[in-house]
């Protein structure tokens, strides 16, 4: 059994696949960083991300997959489900071993698992497109804090860039400790350090635009006004807006000031 340590990027994973074939490894396990699991009894192999190798694997996959098949793999990768790298590898092996496109073979476990993972990420990124709540700072930056289950920032940046082309914005993932920042030209990946708790009310009051609180209260008010009490259906409400998102949803946080 060989432990493959790679950098956690999709290109890194593709490189790893190349090297599995190159070095004829059998029974592989993937890990994102070297300390992750001290399975010292395994053979360990460090994967250095290499675009040429990654591209060759990608080209091979593209030969027998449709564009949406490739997208599915990409999305599945970002699901960060346990053992997703291994599942993807099994899927890739199936693709390489077959002469025709196997995407539709949903009764095969490898295919089904990838599709499910892709679906999960797709759903999560769709939800993030919905549940990002920007707040405006004094410096005209619209910023949002999110905490998605899957790593979806790479998948939603285009959406936000198209939508908010004329405002500077930042979406920060507190779980993975990085954000995407749009400066009116390009989107780049940023890491931030906060001097104080970014969700404390004092911090917020200091950095916010003077109308920010007003708009938040307006939105909360609006959210309350549109509810029809006689149609209340909490189960459905929570099904659509799972509780794990609430702490970053403006309408679910009580008024700052009455």
């Amino acid at each position, binding site marked *: 059994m060989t432990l493959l340590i790679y950098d956690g990027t999709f290109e890194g994973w593709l490189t790893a696949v190349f090297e599995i074939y190159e070095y004829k490894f059998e029974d592989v396990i993937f890990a994102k960083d070297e300390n992750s699991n001290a399975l010292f009894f395994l053979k360990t192999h460090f994967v250095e991300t290499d675009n040429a190798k990654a591209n060759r694997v990608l080209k091979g996959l593209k030969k027998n997959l449709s564009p949406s098949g490739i997208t599915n793999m990409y999305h599945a990768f970002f699901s960060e489900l346990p053992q997703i790298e291994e599942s993807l590898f099994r899927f890739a092996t199936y693709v390489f071993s077959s002469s025709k496109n*196997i995407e*539709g*073979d*949903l*009764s*095969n476990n490898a295919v*089904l698992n990838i599709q499910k993972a892709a679906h999960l990420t797709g759903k999560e990124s*769709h939800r993030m*497109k*919905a*549940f*990002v*709540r*920007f*707040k*405006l700072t004094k410096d005209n930056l*619209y910023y*949002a804090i999110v905490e998605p289950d899957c790593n979806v920032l790479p998948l939603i940046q285009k*959406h936000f860039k*198209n*939508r*908010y*082309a*004329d*405002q500077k914005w930042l979406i920060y993932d507190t779980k993975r400790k990085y954000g995407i920042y749009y400066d009116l030209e390009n989107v780049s990946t940023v890491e931030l350090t906060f001097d104080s708790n970014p969700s404390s009310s004092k911090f917020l009051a200091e950095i916010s635009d003077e*109308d920010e609180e*007003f*708009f938040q*209260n*307006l*939105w909360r*008010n*609006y*959210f309350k*006004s*549109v*509810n*029809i*009490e*006689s*149609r*209340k*259906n*909490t*189960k*459905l*409400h929570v*099904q*659509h*807006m799972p509780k794990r998102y609430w702490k970053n*949803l*403006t*309408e679910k946080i009580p008024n700052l000031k009455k």
Partner: protein
Amino acid sequence: MVHERVMEKLAILADAAKYDVSCSSSAGQNKRKNQNKGLGDTGNGICHAYTEDGRCVSLLKILLTNHCIFDCAYCVSRKSNDIKRAAFTVQEVVDLTIGFYRRNYIEGLFLSSGIFDNPDYTMERLVRIAKKLRLEENFNGYIHLKAIPGASDELIKEAGMYADRLSVNVEMPTEKSLKLLAPEKNHADVIKPMEYLKNEIVGHKEEKKLNFKAPLFAPAGQSTQMIIGATQENDLEILGMANYFYEQMNMRRVYYSGYVPISYDNRLPAIGTPVPMIRENRLYQADWLIRFYGFNVNEIVGFDQPNLDLDIDPKLGWALRNLHQFPVDINSADLELILRIPGIGVTSAKKIVSARKFKRLQPEDLKKLGIAYNRSKFFLAFSSPFYLQKDLTSIQIKEQILNIQNSKYQNNFSNQLSLFQ
């Protein structure tokens, strides 16, 4: 903006608009793209939040004003109702929309209004707001305007230039009910602008085909809404009317709104009468079957059975009345037939058709594909010599399915269709 006053107006005018359900932001085929680094695009429509009653919030849905010269009995804004009145200025609506959109609260604006002064005066203001958003704010998000019955064609035409969707609500499914509850109105007032819109939309579409630079005109089409359960119509009349709108008026969506009792008026169900939510849900399901599953209205409701079953969904109801069409062999049947199997939705049906290219599908495979096998099994045939199927009557099947449903799906339905398969 004067904060306090706007806050109060928003509470009043959002509250008054909330009974109008036609608010989803389905984009048109000609999506409004953000090409010049402006703000927003109409995209695919996102629900940004859900109310505690489980309905989606995708648009800022408000009335421009709840002052009204009419007195429709089913409407909170009616003249004789003793409520607080308010009116937004044009600029206030623009500022609210932009402020909410920039914070990613909404996909756009749904603007309706009570009729103050006269229809044209009201319509002119709605148009001014849309125009300002598009031209001054460079806003490409979604705009849905209510076309005020009685407004002049020119104004409605102008509205279509800036809005993505227009709607005229028929409110009452039949002329008779309308006469009863809104004596000052008649169906013709509603049908006329619908017809005008239909022709304009079709005309602009043709033009767009020839010249892609031709301006957009209500690219997301028109929609309408019917209030359900305020009056005596049966589902056959309601779905028949809906069908007429889909076929004759090119309507994109017909919305069904279960009547929420709001007044002491002996023409209407008394306050406290429950909202007919299950019936509303069944109507949406029937509507979906007609639009996406290839069913005819007459297959779902007919003169011998003018109302939808409340205890089971209309697809199951149809299957039980048509057991002679089953069992269906999913390994060989056409997609259209698979779509008619209870428990199998559009996505599942497509999955089946794609997976069966690789192997003959067995019951285990269906479960893997996420199909409600417990529900569909009564209608399936597997071409295996060892597969035995008992002949059950429709009553027995219904009982067994209701048993599964009661343990699993009780009280869990949405007016916008969530668990329907």
